């Protein structure tokens, strides 16, 4: 399959349905790249005309802002907004809840107004509209636990969309001790993932993964590339690499539909 940029579409005199905002992790982190590819395959499979910005995409500025560097954030934001507005982008789907939150909530005041969805919300709408037909598949009856990322869950109140996507695969969703609005953080947010944590008794990702272990599920479904990094590290720290895996919701769907191995 061929991934087309917004410029490709415009050159062909076409307008894509959505802009897929890949994000830095989705572009560069090897593990998150697999999520990016899985989501692109689903879009292709469902016949969604999607564009990417390619090399014109740049960090939304989220980590800079959370770390307190407002100047760098706003520089990134205004550059990105110039690119997005230049193409006349209307609808954006992001596979990272941090990018999603920043573009959706913090760009409008700086001149960037778009309809912004997280990929789990978009997947849900594809299923609801019948554009993506999911009937059970690989994860049918399998135990899955779902980790709410803070920026999608508490931060933006999206709790049900990812769960409905999991339900569409007829998987056996088991909740952790803390979930939804009470869901525990993975430890990555607030730019923590870019530095060592402060002195303490335990790492946050280990504490969170212990809750996942308690459920007995072999799959921890996630919706965020940074949660994915943290939780996978937590699994390693608990010596459970052979027992559990962190898998993004997009990958679950792609696997259920036989689009990836």
């Amino acid at each position, binding site marked *: 399959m061929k991934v087309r940029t917004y410029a490709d579409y415009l050159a062909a005199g076409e307008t894509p349905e959505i802009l897929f905002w890949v994000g830095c992790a989705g572009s560069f982190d090897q593990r998150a790249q697999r999520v990016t590819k899985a989501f692109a395959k689903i879009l292709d499979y469902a016949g969604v005309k999607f564009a990417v910005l390619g090399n014109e995409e*740049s960090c939304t500025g989220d980590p800079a802002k959370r770390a307190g560097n407002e100047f760098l954030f706003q520089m990134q934001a205004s550059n990105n907004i110039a690119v997005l507005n230049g193409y006349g982008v209307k609808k954006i789907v992001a596979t990272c809840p941090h990018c999603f939150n920043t573009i959706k909530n913090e760009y409008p005041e700086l001149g960037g107004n778009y309809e912004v969805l997280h990929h789990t919300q978009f997947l849900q709408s594809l299923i609801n509209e019948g554009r993506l037909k999911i009937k059970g598949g690989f994860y049918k009856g399998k135990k899955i636990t779902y980790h709410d990322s803070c920026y999608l869950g508490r931060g933006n109140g999206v709790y049900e969309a990812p769960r409905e996507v999991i339900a569409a695969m007829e998987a056996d969703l088991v909740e952790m001790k803390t979930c939804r609005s009470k869901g525990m953080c993975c430890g990555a947010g607030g*730019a923590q993932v870019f530095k060592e944590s402060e002195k303490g008794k335990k790492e946050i990702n280990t504490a969170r993964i212990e809750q996942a272990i308690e459920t007995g599920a072999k799959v921890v479904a996630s919706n965020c590339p940074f949660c994915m990094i943290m939780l996978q590290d937590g699994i390693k720290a608990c010596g459970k690499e052979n027992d559990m895996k962190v898998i993004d919701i997009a990958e679950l769907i792609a696997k259920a539909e036989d689009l990836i191995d």
Partner: protein
Amino acid sequence: MQYLSQILFILILGAGVYFFYRSINRIIRNIKLGKDIDLSDNKAKRWKNMLRFAVGQGKMTKIKPIAGILHVFVYLGFVLINIEVLEIIIDGIAGTHRVFRPVLGGLYDFSIAFFEILGLLVIISCIIFLFRRNAMKIYRFQSPELKGWPFFDANVILVVEIVLMVALIVMNAADRSFQADASMPVSSFLYPMFENMSDSSAHLWVQAAWWFHFVGILWFLNYVPYSKHLHIILAFPNTYYTNLDPKAKFKNNELVSNEVKAMMDTSFTPPTVENPRFGVKDVEDLTWKNLLDAYSCTECGRCTSVCPANTTGKLLSPRKVMMDTRDRLEEVGKIRDGVLPEPEQPKDLHTYITKEELLACTTCNACVEVCPININPMDIIVNMRQYLVMEESAAPQEWNMMFSNIENNGAPWQFAQSERANWAIDLENESKKDEN
């Protein structure tokens, strides 16, 4: 003699109300030291929030059901029994006794009976609360920031509430008119105490309990502004002014917006700002809503008990952030009023809240979500962090590397921007391989 007690009553009432008024004015003045922020929008939604969270205690029973229900008892007891204060004031000024009783008749006795049951529930709840705080090893009540005054403060509140309720019940028990024709559900158990007493002695008991209750309430009214218990008043405005945006939305710093705009558009001249400050150095750099939050906090510690940094042993405690903000604000207010001298060493909010605490926040919003009255410790943390990074250049080395990566490559890691879409090329090659 009768007039003398009425005059005494009016003097005590006047003094109590006057000193309370002064305290409240001082608190309002301190809150207004904060930066202005316009929260006058969306009134319907704001009233709804106040009804749901403050009046309806919407979060209390959800977060910790047992403590929550006990809290609802104390809250209802406090609000409803205080209807009786209206009668106390009229009786005290006019020299009457139970002025509403002839007017309301049966309804009056029913109300008093109902108040007695509530009063008993308040007493039971407060005893359980005292037990939880002092005997049970609940970390929320033992953590370091509660040592000393805050711990004592909590016990004072509980003991005073118990004593006030006991006075009310004793007052009813000693009242011959109740003994004669009404059986009160709680105070009737105390009748034996007064059975063999002369009418005048019993009346003295009623008078004593009545005065005790009245003076007690006024003392408590004047204690509250100095105590964590201020939430009984400020919970209402604080929930009204709850942030209505999605929780993960951080405000954009306008000062920075103007600078960036001026860089992008040379024709734009940013408005001149005297002593521009990025982020929060001291309490005056916070918004008045942050300061209202600090005064509204009752130090229950639900925030800290769900903070992922705190529960894994880091120094950060959102409750401490709120307590420190209030302490510093009180200090700044006292310096302004000349009550405290200017400190020899310059102090600010960062003297209270250290860098180690500020850097540990994952901005997960758990503290904001859990607070029964929607206090936002995270907003204070991230804006103080902004000061550390932008004004003090005190970011950890790893963050500085992340910043320069974003600046140079448009990603927080050291990858070339030109390789950003390599995954798409991979995908194309992979699918070609599949086809062959």
